């Protein structure tokens, strides 16, 4: 089988932050239902990996797993990566334009100015500070999932950064059943990184593994809003099987091509 396997890790970030656990807040989905995966769309996914071996015992199929973390309650990952920065810049430019208009307004409209200023301040929204220690995405403002500027970050519902897988560990890794690693990727939907693993299918069985996942909480610190990383983990399983390779024509060993020994009219 040459098909690569994808496992989507969909995190309900809002509820995970509230309960500080990924239990019941993660939905796993893979593209291997065809080969017997169970529990798609739940937190209890068993990914089936059907391997094969040649008659000399060597591995017949290369199995490659890919993990894709997504967030429930975020701006969709398919919008361009610069979208959030662009929205922040747009809102600043709009505020500057409105301030200029307000400044050039005729005198005597002072009563309205206070209300106008307050409206402009609302439209400016909530910038998120970048701190090296806190990490997390910077240079942006707090947006809701429709891309609108959020004025009161503490009270309103806002979009959260996508979860990040920081490590994949556990039984399947310790027993050298799968070899996960993080790779650079030209696909910015995954922030330029993704976790992938190759699998040794020579030891069939069900093995668990743990994903360490970082999500981000918007907190106010020293008068500024920052994304504070919160590290949690969740468990999943792989079920490895292995079957013998066989000849497609004979279902046994290799033979002659199944062409009838007939003479074609020339």
């Amino acid at each position, binding site marked *: 089988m040459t098909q690569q396997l994808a496992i989507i890790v969909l995190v309900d970030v809002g509820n995970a932050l509230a309960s500080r656990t990924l239990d019941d807040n993660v939905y796993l989905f893979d593209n291997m239902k065809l080969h017997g995966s169970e529990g798609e769309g739940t937190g209890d996914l068993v990914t089936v990996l059907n391997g094969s071996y040649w008659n000399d015992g060597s591995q017949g199929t290369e199995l490659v797993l890919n993990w894709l973390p997504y967030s429930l309650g975020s701006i969709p990952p398919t919008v361009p990566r610069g979208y959030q920065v662009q929205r922040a810049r747009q809102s600043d430019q709009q505020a500057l334009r409105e301030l200029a208009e307000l400044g050039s307004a005729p005198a005597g409209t002072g009563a309205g100015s206070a209300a106008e200023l307050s409206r402009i301040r609302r439209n400016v929204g909530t910038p998120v500070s970048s701190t090296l220690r806190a990490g997390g995405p910077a240079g942006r403002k707090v947006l809701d999932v429709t891309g609108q500027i959020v004025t009161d970050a503490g009270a309103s519902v806002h979009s959260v950064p996508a979860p990040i897988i920081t490590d994949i560990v556990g039984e399947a890794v310790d027993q050298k059943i799968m070899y996960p690693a993080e790779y650079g990727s030209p696909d910015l939907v995954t922030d330029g990184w993704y976790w992938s693993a190759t699998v040794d299918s020579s030891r069939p069985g069900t093995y668990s593994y743990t994903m360490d996942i970082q999500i981000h909480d918007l907190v106010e610190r020293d008068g500024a809003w920052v994304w504070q990383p919160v590290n949690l983990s969740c468990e999943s399983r792989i079920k490895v099987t292995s079957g013998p390779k066989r*000849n497609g024509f004979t279902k046994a060993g290799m033979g002659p091509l199944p062409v009838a020994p007939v003479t074609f009219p020339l």
Partner: protein
Amino acid sequence: MKPKVNIVVLVDVIGALSDDTLHNGNLSIVDDSALRSTGQGTTELCTVVSPGQVVGWSVLAVDLQTPVEIRSITFLDPEGRPAAAEPPAADGAPPAGESSAGEQLDLDDWTAVVPPWMTPGVPYRYRLELRMHEGPHSLFELDTPALLCGGPQN
């Protein structure tokens, strides 16, 4: 003589499933025969082989995360009918050269030896059957590729 000729079937699985055809650029076949095969990269590849060579077919999905497997390879008679059309066995086993549904097609290795009884210079067309996932529209057939025996080579 090259001991083995590889025939690689490249498939755009999503294109084939949405167009409901292997044509329209959804499938391309190439081989590495040292002899002069024709139709490289098309659905009408005619691979030139020699008796005693091993021919191996494999399928590659253009989108690596889509499933496609070879389900059967059946040679056709001059009228385009399956030449080795045997009645299905009484026990329900699939006829030779075909996998039954639900079987692990990824275990199949589609290789065979070119027999000495092929008439040189005559294209032997074959039916390539592919399976993409397992739904009611998952099976596709292509009757256009062929093998041609170029005669013994040194």
